């Protein structure tokens, strides 16, 4: 017969006798500590907010923002709500990320291919570039590019111009812009032209699709050019040239200086990392494939485009997904040169309203949603591209 105290201790010891039981005990202990920390944090939060006389809630997002934004892809003024300001920031972040994704992919594929070239100097030059980028902070590169542009670009009235279409000045780059003219499409002439254009487009589309294996270059790209060309000819789409009036440019599209410097620095920075991904992918393709291509008499370019890259692509997609999510995250350094991305607008809003908890939650969810969305999309693409083994 044991006393009750001993039996309790004995039972407790029995509870921990198997590894599984010990692991479970540890698990609940860790979770309890983390949970306790979270509860304590929340309690402090409530206490601190009460002391300040404010309460959690998202209602303030509909209030008038009262601040202006340097650049916006949708109409926005200081009279609009905070919510709209955050939307402007999200769109700016996405805009920058997409441009950088495209450019860094172009740079990365080019450099990655050259790095494996039989001509050794290309390999050496590319290696130099990749290593330099790997060892420099992105913020340093961004500041260097920004300072370079600010120092070297002329004032707006002395802007450097190419064919009177593109103007380069310290305000940024003014490009000709395309504008949709809806009124044109509503007249009888417009209607007839529109239907004729659509019919022509579908015809060309079907003709091209039946004859080409590569859809992007032989199908989608010419189709887009054709659509824009037809639109310009029949007046649905108007080409606007930038013009210097008074103190500023009007018409066309402005690529602002912060945006320009961010695009240059992030594309160059990530181009080096993409190049490493591309190199890894290409090295994963068996040598026999290249030799087979040579034996068939294909040229170097053909071997790269038709044999190596399609196979390397399969290996490259998962690390490339990672790279693209990284680019999205790194657009947040835009704040350092005054680009109105999501983080920058969140920062301004926090400073105005002092609602850090709500605003950080909103911004984090936006990043999570975009990141997860991109991952899901690219994973689906990955599944489609993988070799089907039957």
């Amino acid at each position, binding site marked *: 017969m044991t006393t009750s105290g001993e039996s309790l201790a004995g039972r407790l010891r029995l509870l921990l006798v198997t590894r599984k039981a010990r692991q479970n005990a540890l698990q609940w202990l860790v979770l309890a500590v983390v949970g306790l920390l979270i509860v304590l944090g929340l309690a402090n939060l409530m206490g601190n907010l009460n002391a300040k006389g404010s309460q959690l809630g998202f209602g303030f997002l509909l209030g008038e923002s009262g601040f202006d934004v340097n650049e916006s892809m949708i109409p926005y003024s200081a009279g609009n709500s905070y919510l709209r300001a955050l939307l402007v920031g999200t769109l700016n972040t996405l805009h920058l990320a997409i441009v950088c994704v495209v450019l860094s992919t172009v740079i990365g594929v080019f450099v990655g291919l050259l790095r494996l070239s039989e001509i050794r100097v290309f390999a050496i030059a590319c290696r130099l570039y990749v290593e330099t980028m790997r060892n420099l902070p992105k913020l*340093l590169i961004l500041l260097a590019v920004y300072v370079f542009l600010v120092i070297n670009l002329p004032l707006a009235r002395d802007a450097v111009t190419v064919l009177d279409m593109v103007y380069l000045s310290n305000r940024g780059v003014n490009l000709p812009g395309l504008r949709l003219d809806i009124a044109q499409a509503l007249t009888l002439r417009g209607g007839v032209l529109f239907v004729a254009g659509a019919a022509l487009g579908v015809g060309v589309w079907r003709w091209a699709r039946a004859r080409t294996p590569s859809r992007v270059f032989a199908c989608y790209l010419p189709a887009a050019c054709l659509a824009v060309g037809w639109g310009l000819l029949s007046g649905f789409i108007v080409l606007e040239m930038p013009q210097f009036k008074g103190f500023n440019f009007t018409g066309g599209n402005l690529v602002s200086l912060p945006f320009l410097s961010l695009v240059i620095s992030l594309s160059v920075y990530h181009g080096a990392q993409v190049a490493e991904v591309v190199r890894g992918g290409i090295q994963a393709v068996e040598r026999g494939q290249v030799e087979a291509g040579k034996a068939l008499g294909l040229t170097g370019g053909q071997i790269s485009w038709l044999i190596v890259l399609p196979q390397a692509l399969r290996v490259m997609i998962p690390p490339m997904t990672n790279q693209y999510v990284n680019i999205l995250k790194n657009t947040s350094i835009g704040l350092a040169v005054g680009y109105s991305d999501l983080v920058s607008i969140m920062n301004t809003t926090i400073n105005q309203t002092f609602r850090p908890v709500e605003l950080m939650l909103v911004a984090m969810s936006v990043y999570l949603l975009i990141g997860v969305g991109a991952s899901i999309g690219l994973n689906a693409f990955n599944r489609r591209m993988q070799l089907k083994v039957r």
Partner: protein
Amino acid sequence: MTEAILMEEVSMAPPSLGRWQTVRAQFFQNRTATFWTVLFGVSAAYSLFLLLDWSIFSAKWGPGTPAACADYSGACWAFIWEKWSVILLGSFPRDQMWRPFAGVGLVLAVLFLLARLRWPARLSTCLLIFAFAALFSLLDGRPLGLEQVNMVRWHGIAVVTFLGVFSLVAAFPLGILLALARVDGPPVLSWCAAGYIEVIRSIPLVMLLFFGIFVLPLLLPASMSYEPLLATLLALILFHAAYFAEGVRGGLQAVPDGQREAGESLGLGYVTVIRKIVLPQALSVSIPAMTNTIIGGLKDTSLVAIVGIFDLLATTRMAYSDPEWQRFAYEGLFVLGVLYLVVCTAISHHSRVMEQHVAGWLTIGK
């Protein structure tokens, strides 16, 4: 005799080439290659000449005023001469200048020593904790009976060392624990670790730094004193831990189950198996991944400039914001870039040394 001749004739070894022949085979094998080699050689030589001309031959050396620099077409090193203490120390009190230098020197000496000794676990732990304590005491001053310097005046190299080195040092064990919890832990713990790692990895570091500056003070009791620098350190630790965890997870998954089973059949407990058998192999395998995290982490320390902490990049910006010296931003950024290049290249080099060091006994991947 005939046999020997036969052996010689069928020898498959490629004919050994002289140095010149090797160069020729690699750089001048045909007309295209020759063309590009010459073109690249000439442009590289010209760029090097321009760089040397800018930085050395046409540069203004020694002290001077901005006006004196206008006579030189190259770099104006008078800027560095004038502003070196601003760039390195920001607004740390000038009469206490020796303290950040001593602290940073001590930390670097410890790191260098440990690197030479190939990171013995116990000594590394002790020395790194000592280095942290020494750096903190030297900068703060109170523990050593010196004049106190407030944390908001820790700038430049002091901040880069304090945040860059010690966020990584502290994140490393946390990352190992997270990876173990994710790979090896009981289900709920594993999901929590995975969730944490994935969430941290999908938000930008800048956001996490803002979290440390804006939200963290609200989560602490109102009575507690709050230092932005410590909040930033915490944010960096939480951030790097997730990335270390991913690297270590790769290593853990590369260790064959047989290793662990062999340990268990010897009667070793879980902790011993992990410490003595699994982790040494897993960490060795993940050296390249961890090097990426370390270099990336060191570089990303410069992002704290965005939330108003004066690291080297911010102090450099402070130096060239002086209206007199505004035109000489490039000199400052150039010096800083060279500094980062040297440090990161040294880390890469050390990681290759470590890879060779473990390759001797590592059996995974062979």
